């Protein structure tokens, strides 16, 4: 019975044909764009293609804060968010100059100093704060549990009640 699948040599031929078609379309599109640009130049002699927009912050000053200062800023954001939730975060971060927000995001491993927008930096910092708070909530649970008498700890018998219940009656046999 013949295979339902195209053999590799046939597949290669099909892909080559598709590439050829794409190339033709691409060349037609480029030619069309060129013609449009010529027509525009003829109608508007002063026209020049739009220059690429400068990347965000490329002309801005950079924060003068050290890594330690930025880490301390992060801690203060943590406290503000812990106490006031999203509103607390927004309120605290709005006190920071844009350059510091971008530097803080960079310090937390998000984006670069030169290309990251303030909006993106702010969202990045928010994400890191959320992560840190989630880790803190686990920490709190851990400490509380550790302080409590532990029902699962191995006592003098060496076996917790839950484990005793799970143990087969033939425990010890092979």
């Amino acid at each position: 019975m013949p295979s339902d699948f195209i053999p590799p040599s046939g597949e290669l031929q099909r892909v080559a044909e598709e590439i050829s078609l794409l190339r033709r379309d691409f060349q037609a599109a480029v030619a069309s764009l060129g013609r449009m640009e010529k027509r525009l130049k003829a109608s508007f002699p002063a026209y020049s293609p739009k220059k690429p927009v400068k990347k965000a912050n490329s002309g801005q000053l950079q924060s003068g804060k050290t890594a330690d200062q930025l880490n301390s800023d992060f801690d203060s954001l943590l406290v503000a968010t812990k106490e006031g939730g999203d509103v607390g975060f927004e309120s605290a971060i709005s006190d920071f100059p844009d350059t510091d927000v971008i530097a803080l995001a960079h310090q937390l491993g998000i984006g670069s100093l030169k290309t990251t927008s303030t909006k993106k930096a702010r969202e990045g910092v928010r994400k890191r704060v959320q992560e840190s708070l989630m880790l803190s909530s686990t920490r709190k649970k851990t400490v509380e549990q550790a302080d409590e008498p532990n029902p699962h700890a191995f006592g003098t018998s060496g076996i917790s009640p839950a484990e005793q219940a799970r143990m087969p009656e033939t425990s010890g046999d092979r």
Partner: protein
Amino acid sequence: MSEQQPPKTIATINFKGGVGKTTVTWCLGDLISTYGDANTLLFDLDAQMSLTQAITLNEDGSRFRKFSEWSERSEKKGKTIFKAIEEYTSGKKFDFGINHDFIYSITDKYHFIPAIEDLYWLELNVFDQQKMQGFIRDLLGKITWSKNVPDYRYALFDCPPSFTLLSYSVLSVCDLILIPVNPDFYAVKGVPLILNTLQMRIEPFPIPKIAVFMNKAKPYAGGMTKESQFYWREVQRVCAQASKQAGLKVKCLEAPIYDRAAIKRAVTTGGVPSDFVPDFKRLWDEITTFLYAK
């Protein structure tokens, strides 16, 4: 007659899979036996047998003849860790002979006790749990006093990513628990979990020293990326809390191991890649400084 000293015992554990427990444990053993003069004994306690299989395989995926022949002989003679557990928990006198049918020589100074698939039975609690607690302690005692094998300065344990009876037996007797973490949220979140569990499960035995280090750190310009640094600071926060409030001796080791493909392949290619020996030496120096500190 000089008094025999038991080896210093280090157990590598983390409940999160894929953090690099096996590779790091093997690399540290390889490092101290190759670049130092310490006889080192490595245990694979994970029923998944990752370390054992990695040692069995060459880089091309074929089985390493010397080890596979030894392994078959060892199983035929009943010299596996599973048989040792069976004998230990049987209620009879623990008279398991220690020799090189039980311990495989990777090199002159680097020796290995492999895992075996039968270790999965441990998960089913078929053994007497109370008796299992002392298994590793008594096995190490036998190894220490055996004339058939050298004196080991270090015993390294590659523990499974769960709390099996065997890992409990190791953790209640070891000198240091080594926890590798990775620079990602889930790996860091696992740290308080394991610290909590260690305390709950090891009590009433004294909790060993605990060392945490950053494994698979993302490298950038001779250090860690900012993102890796962020997660490392989070690890330090978590550990500081545990140290302060739960009374655990947790040390965050400052020497990271970077995420490099050559390190991942280190077990099957035969050694710690020379480019990364300084990183592992720094880590080991920190481990031993903490281990021997009063």
